[in-house]
């Protein structure tokens, strides 16, 4: 049981255009990739990955609609209601790992780097549409000597998608694992590219969520509950899911294209 926790915001950081991090004390144990449900009273309750897992935890919000805009406008001293953490996070793997972050997906992935005890073992690829939307580049460099970026418009780093970048990196170097979060189309391409290079990995998905505890069924993908069986899945699991990269369920449970 996850008691609804009201937390005071201790720090806010603008991470990039439309991206904001809120930091707060939250004394529960969290794995990288796990998420919380954030309640915006009178508006909604939405899932957010925990982007910082130390003593002072954090969420990193991409402002896309009403709730995320309201969250983005919170100030130090404001309070915030969350419950969680939920889900099966990323595993602590031993091997050389490439972390791949698409857009807001970096929030779920960066804590993996922070958890690694060896900067030699982790390389990081961060992608965004444009330069202003690249996040966590500096933070990444604290944990890895090989941090690369890509932008769709070429305004910084390689021009192209983060999958192109990852492919390039996999050619340069042999990785044991990929760990990634981002838009599902990106994850789906990355899974393929990884296979071509013989690299298996874990991927974090997003689905519409209500309960977070695995009972309502809103978040299912091919019979798996993203909130409890995921949000992080192994590539091998995803390959057997016909909806992966293709379709999801809307609020009414109807299957729609991604």
């Amino acid at each position, binding site marked *: 049981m996850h008691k609804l926790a009201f937390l005071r915001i201790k720090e806010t950081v603008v991470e990039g255009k439309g991206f904001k991090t809120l930091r707060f004390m939250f004394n529960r144990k969290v794995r990288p990739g796990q998420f919380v449900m954030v309640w915006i009273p009178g508006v909604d309750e939405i899932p957010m990955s925990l982007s910082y897992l130390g003593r002072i935890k954090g969420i990193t919000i991409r402002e896309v609609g009403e709730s995320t805009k309201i969250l983005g406008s919170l100030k130090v001293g404001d*309070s915030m209601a969350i419950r969680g953490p939920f889900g099966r996070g990323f595993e602590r793997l031993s091997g050389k790992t490439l972390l791949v972050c698409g857009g807001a997906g970096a929030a779920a992935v960066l804590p993996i780097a922070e958890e690694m005890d060896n900067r030699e073992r982790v390389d990081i690829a961060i992608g965004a549409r444009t330069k202003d939307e690249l996040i966590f580049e500096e933070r990444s460099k604290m944990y890895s000597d090989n941090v690369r970026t890509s932008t769709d418009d070429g305004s910084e780093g390689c021009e192209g998608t983060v999958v192109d970048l990852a492919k390039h990196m996999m050619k340069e170097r042999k990785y044991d694992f990929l760990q990634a979060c981002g838009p599902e189309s990106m994850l789906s391409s990355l899974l393929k590219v990884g296979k071509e290079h013989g690299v298996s990995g874990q991927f974090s998905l997003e689905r519409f969520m209500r309960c977070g505890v695995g009972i309502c069924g809103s978040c299912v993908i091919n019979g798996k509950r993203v909130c409890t069986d995921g949000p992080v899945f192994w590539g091998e699991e995803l390959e057997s899911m016909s909806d992966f990269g293709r379709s999801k369920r809307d609020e009414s449970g109807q299957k729609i294209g991604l």
Partner: protein
Amino acid sequence: MASLRVNVAGLVMENPTILGSGIIGETGESLLSAYKAGAGAVVTKSIGLEARKGYSNPTLVELPFGYLNAMGLPNPGIESFGEEVLLAVRGGATVIGSVFASEAEVFAQLSSKMEAFGVSAVELNLSCPHASGYGMELGVDPGVVREIVLAVKKSVTIPVFVKLTPNTHRIIEIAQAVQAAGGDSIVAINTVKAMAISIEAGRPILSNIFGGLSGPAVKPIGVRCVYEMYDVVDIPIIGAGGIETWQDALEYIMAGAVAVQIGSGIGRRGLNIFKEVNFGLERYLKSRGIESLGELVGTAHA
């Protein structure tokens, strides 16, 4: 050999544990996953005529002794739901189709669609405590219950289960109305109308304000409803509410339930709960030398 096999009004199940309605039951594959995890049968999410988005979040409150939920009956509508049922049935699951509506005729229409999709029984949701115009608003009036059950019985040949609410003092009359109208089995209970207020936010937590309480907190209420009804009807009763262990299931069975539904326990204990309950019941039967679970039904009555 100790047997867990039960026959509920003609619906035969390998074991008495059923996935409750609204619990991961919106898609065929997740229904199948519960069946494969050990459920004897699975009930679909309650399905209506048209697609419904349900209420906005928060739709669930976690409590130390259960959940409070007001999903708002989200569902893709009966037409789209056909392929989900098919998928589960083809996969081998015994599926019970839950339906909701605000009038008898629509209940009948939905039920006959469900039968066409291949479900083994329909379950009429006359008990959702938080959707205005539906559920318990109908299920507290014996006349209305009678009318709905009669209409559905005319439109299908499969068994008709009727899911009742504990939020009334007329539970006995309602159960009798179900039986009188030819209902094949009663499911009791749905959630108890309740709410939670966040004192920090100074407002109700659920977007719908009111919701339904489920989980261990309601077990004593569910057991009481089953016990009360067992004394007044002859049709089989399916128990629900707060079942998390084989002991809980046995308590319902001794109260008079022939089978049990499990909902919140899946969130609190995991999908393995079906196997655990069944394993426990089987071991119990063996240790007591009881051949069939059926022998225990209603044994708590003097």
